């Protein structure tokens, strides 16, 4: 290399380099400032925007718990259905598509157009709770702006048989009646949500976080025995129709555990069908309706007389001439008899005899006993809308009222309370707490009467179903039963209607080792017969027979057919 080709050094002014350096530094400074601004001040906003490109929040569905009977049969279960919704501004559909859609949804195409044309709303439900197959066909139409949402619908395989116990849920799967309402907190699940990353094709590729875990509702196992329930329903329905009664109800309680094995009402409704439900059918008469119980209360008066030592089962009570006047009110017996023992007073259901017993006792004691067996207080079986019934304070009772209350007028009870009160006689004086859910173990009762008194009354109640008593039709082949009839006049416009009755029967079996208390009530039987012994007792017998066989209770009576009473063998009661 020659020296001549060496470049001639040029001296550039120093400021030029400085300017360039400064410019570069300034540009760098701007970049740093900008990134600091984005990183620190706007970071939240930017991160959100970034995540919105790929992350999605998904709902995690939760199902409502099932309701099972004591043997695990499903009584209520939720299963998914689809709802079709439209976003009005987005809907693009040809008339042919609209027509097809109308056909699938059972709607007029014009109605759909009206709903979809309403731009003021963000979205409209076109149809809720479609079966999955129909929903798939709707989706196959491929109409833009039409979306589907998964919802749950409750199904009740037991239908009308179980309706009053289980109740039903509303369109948004929340309980509205029965167990569905009472146990809503247990049954309801909580929907969860989670954030995920989705790829271009909409597939979830990564779980970012679980925002809220889904919690499925818990299953509930009822004390109900679907077989006993269905048996009771069949018997009740037949009886209500045969006697042209306005309504009827049956409740069966397990004496040992206090579990409610069956609870039926008629008229009833189909919980699967939302459309046709009226107030009359919805009423769960067993727990929400109270009535004046009539003669079914007499055993409690007799029990109190024994308990206080005012009488023994053999003590004679004069009931002649079959009527008795207190103040200006006359108490009458349907069939006047002479002197009766206390046991016979119960067997023949004598009003006069019971009233005479009652007037020997302090009213406070009677009130206290009624309270102790659960009258005038909520039975706490766990149903919504339970009625406490009416039991007035003892100090407001006039003597005539004390007399009428002794045979079940002037106070009101629900059938549930009445059945529960009879567990006192079935359990040697213990009142058992009720349970709608399966407990499976003997319940601890509260001692209300002495065991001796309870056994004595049990004997009287057994004699009431023998020939000569008021309810020979309540007997069951193979088992000893005990019980008491009731036939009470219904109250109407402040007085007692002369020809409107409530016929009832409460009893238990087998007498040697009681397993079941069953209470039957028929409201206004209008086919000629109205006595509890004629109308309610046969229903009791039928249900008891079947239920004891299902429970496998050992026989305690010879297996000979029960002879039905001839004319005159059957005592008639007046209340």
């Amino acid at each position, binding site marked *: 290399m020659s020296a001549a080709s060496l470049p001639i050094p040029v001296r550039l002014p120093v400021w030029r380099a400085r300017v360039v350096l400064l410019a570069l530094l300034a540009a760098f400074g701007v970049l740093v400032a900008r990134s600091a601004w984005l990183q620190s001040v706007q970071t939240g906003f930017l991160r959100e925007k970034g995540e919105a490109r790929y992350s999605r929040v998904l709902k995690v569905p939760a199902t409502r718990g099932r309701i099972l009977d004591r043997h695990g049969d499903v009584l209520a279960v939720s299963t998914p259905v689809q709802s079709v919704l439209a976003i009005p501004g987005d809907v693009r559909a040809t008339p042919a598509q609209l027509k097809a859609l109308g056909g699938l949804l059972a709607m007029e195409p014009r109605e759909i157009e009206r709903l979809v044309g309403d731009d003021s709303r963000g979205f409209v439900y076109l149809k809720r709770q479609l079966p999955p197959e129909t929903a798939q066909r709707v989706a196959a139409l491929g109409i833009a702006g039409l979306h589907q949402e998964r919802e749950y619908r409750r199904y009740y*395989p037991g239908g009308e048989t179980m309706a009053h116990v289980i109740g039903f849920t509303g369109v948004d799967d929340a309980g509205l009646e029965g167990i569905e309402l009472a146990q809503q907190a247990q049954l309801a699940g909580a929907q969860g949500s989670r954030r995920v990353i989705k790829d271009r094709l909409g597939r979830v590729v990564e779980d970012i976080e679980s925002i809220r875990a889904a919690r499925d509702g818990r299953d509930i196992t009822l004390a109900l025995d679907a077989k006993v329930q*269905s048996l009771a329903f069949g018997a009740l329905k037949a009886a209500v129709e045969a006697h042209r009664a306005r309504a009827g109800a049956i409740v069966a309680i397990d004496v040992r555990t206090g579990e409610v094995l069956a609870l039926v009402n008629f008229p009833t409704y189909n919980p699967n069908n939302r459309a046709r439900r009226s107030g009359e059918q919805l009423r769960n008469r067993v727990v929400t309706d109270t009535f004046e119980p009539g003669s079914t209360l007499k055993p409690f008066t007799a029990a109190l007389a024994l308990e206080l030592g005012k009488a023994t089962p053999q003590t004679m009570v004069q009931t002649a001439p079959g009527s008795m006047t207190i103040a200006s009110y006359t108490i009458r017996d349907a069939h006047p008899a002479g002197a009766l023992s206390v046991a016979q007073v119960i067997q023949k259901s004598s009003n006069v005899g019971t009233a005479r017993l009652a007037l020997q006792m302090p009213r406070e004691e009677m009130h206290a006993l009624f309270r102790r067996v659960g009258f005038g207080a909520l039975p706490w079986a766990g149903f919504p809308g339970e009625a406490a019934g009416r039991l007035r304070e003892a100090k407001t009772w006039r003597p005539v009222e004390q007399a009428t209350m002794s045979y079940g007028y002037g106070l009101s009870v629900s059938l549930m309370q009445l059945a529960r009160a009879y567990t006192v006689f079935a359990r040697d004086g213990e009142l058992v707490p009720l349970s709608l859910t399966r407990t499976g173990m003997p319940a601890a009762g509260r001692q209300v009467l002495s065991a001796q008194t309870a056994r004595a009354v049990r004997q009287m109640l057994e004699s009431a179903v023998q020939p000569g008593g008021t309810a020979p039709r309540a007997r069951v082949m193979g088992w000893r039963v005990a019980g008491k009839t009731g036939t009470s006049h219904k109250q109407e416009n402040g007085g007692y209607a002369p020809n409107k009755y409530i016929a009832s029967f409460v009893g238990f079996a087998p007498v040697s080792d009681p397993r079941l208390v069953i209470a039957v009530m028929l409201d206004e039987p209008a086919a000629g017969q109205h006595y509890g012994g004629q109308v309610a007792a046969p229903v009791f017998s039928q249900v008891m027979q079947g239920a004891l066989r299902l429970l496998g209770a050992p026989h305690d009576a010879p297996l000979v057919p029960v002879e039905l009473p001839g004319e005159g063998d059957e005592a008639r009661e007046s209340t």
Partner: protein
Amino acid sequence: MAKLNLLLLLVLVVCALGLVTSQHKSRKLFSELEREQERTRQLEIEYGQLQLEASTWGLHSRIERIAGATLGMRAPDPRRVRTVQKLEPVTDKEAP
């Protein structure tokens, strides 16, 4: 020095590729897990529907109707029922 740099570059490339593959695999596995979970839900739903169906077919009233009408069955007359009592086992000492 250059050799070491080249070696490190190679290691870096291998690591980067490994990361990409494992990420890809994890996403594939995850989507598989999602599918299986969806299937679990579907099967649970189907189980519920089958239970519903079983309950409907097994309705007491339906069984009663079929037993009575189609099969001609009826509850035995209680007079023809023999109840067997469970006897306590007899030990040698108590036996006469």
